[in-house]
């Protein structure tokens, strides 16, 4: 896969307007093998993520549960695709409010809520989330991205601690 399909054009703070949407990242439909591969990769043996009978009969769930520990990476991926190579995802926060079960198609999305200049850099506040194929929003959150200004210095890396 070429660099441009992942990165797109380098994002500039001056190009942004409150209300702008970040490019959506679509994952799915997410089937049993996807969940099994994730559980195996991180060695998480909680049966509700790969044992259909346990999930439905023992725990009374509607199906195999898509791991929160997995979904959260989709949010980070969607924001970094948009902000990098020049921007830095400084902060992210989200809640797992509802269950997503096997078979779902998940879309990570973001929307700019505030733009400000701070210390010579552009600070972008975003509302973020993941919705399923029916529009259910089970993972609401917020994020902060730091971008260089048009005539400003590069965002430092490592990013300084407060």
């Amino acid at each position, binding site marked *: *896969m070429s*660099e441009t*399909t*992942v990165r797109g054009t380098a994002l500039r703070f001056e190009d942004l307007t409150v209300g702008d949407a970040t490019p959506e990242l679509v*994952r799915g439909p997410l089937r049993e093998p996807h969940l099994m*591969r*994730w559980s*195996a*990769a*991180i*060695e*998480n*043996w*909680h*049966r*509700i993520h790969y*044992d259909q009978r*346990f999930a439905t009969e*023992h*725990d009374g769930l509607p199906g195999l549960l898509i*791991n*929160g*520990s*997995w979904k*959260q*990476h*989709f949010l*980070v*991926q969607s924001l*970094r*695709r948009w902000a*990098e*190579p020049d921007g*830095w*995802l*400084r*902060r*992210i*926060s*989200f*809640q*797992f409010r509802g269950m997503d079960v096997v078979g779902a198609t998940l879309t990570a999305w973001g929307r700019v809520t505030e733009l400000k200049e701070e210390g010579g850099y552009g600070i972008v506040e975003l509302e973020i989330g993941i919705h399923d194929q029916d529009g259910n929003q089970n993972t609401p*959150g917020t994020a902060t991205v730091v971008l260089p200004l048009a005539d400003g210095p*590069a965002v430092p*890396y*490592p*990013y*300084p*601690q407060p």
Partner: protein
Amino acid sequence: MPESATRSAGIVTDAMRALMGAKSEKRTAPWPLSEDSLRRFVQAVMEEDPVHWDPTAAEAGRYGSVVATPLFPLHVFRREPGTPDPLDAVSADPGNDGTSGAGGASGSLPPLDLPLKRLLNGGTEAEFFQLAKIGDVVTTQSEYVDISERLNRRGEPMVIVRTRTTYSNQDGATLATITTSLIAR
């Protein structure tokens, strides 16, 4: 906030509250970050950014060498060989959920012994400073930052525990601070 949310569930004790803010012992991952564990992770999470596997792509940008993703430090603690097999509990009890012995990054904090059965991942708050490189050895230190209880809409008790973990590398540089919320009910 509904009225029920303001009523105490009567589960959180003073002894539990006394644990808030106390930092755990530091805990170091049993292995350095390896290319192979990162490869398995990147493929499982369907990450498409080549800075996570291609040295040439990584050297062309700010990272300089192959790096893990921002939230990867959440997954650095793995079971060491020779330790008890958590799946023995599944053999002994068909109703066992498979999570026996799962400690994770905050495993060095004193357990809260909540009299509730089901644990749910409530969410995450993270701040990122740099990404772990291949060969980095991640160390964590955790603290409970908040414990609260309430009754849900069905009048059942639930407890929310927020745990903040600082992830650093072998040079003492902070990679990230990640606060996770665990909902017990």
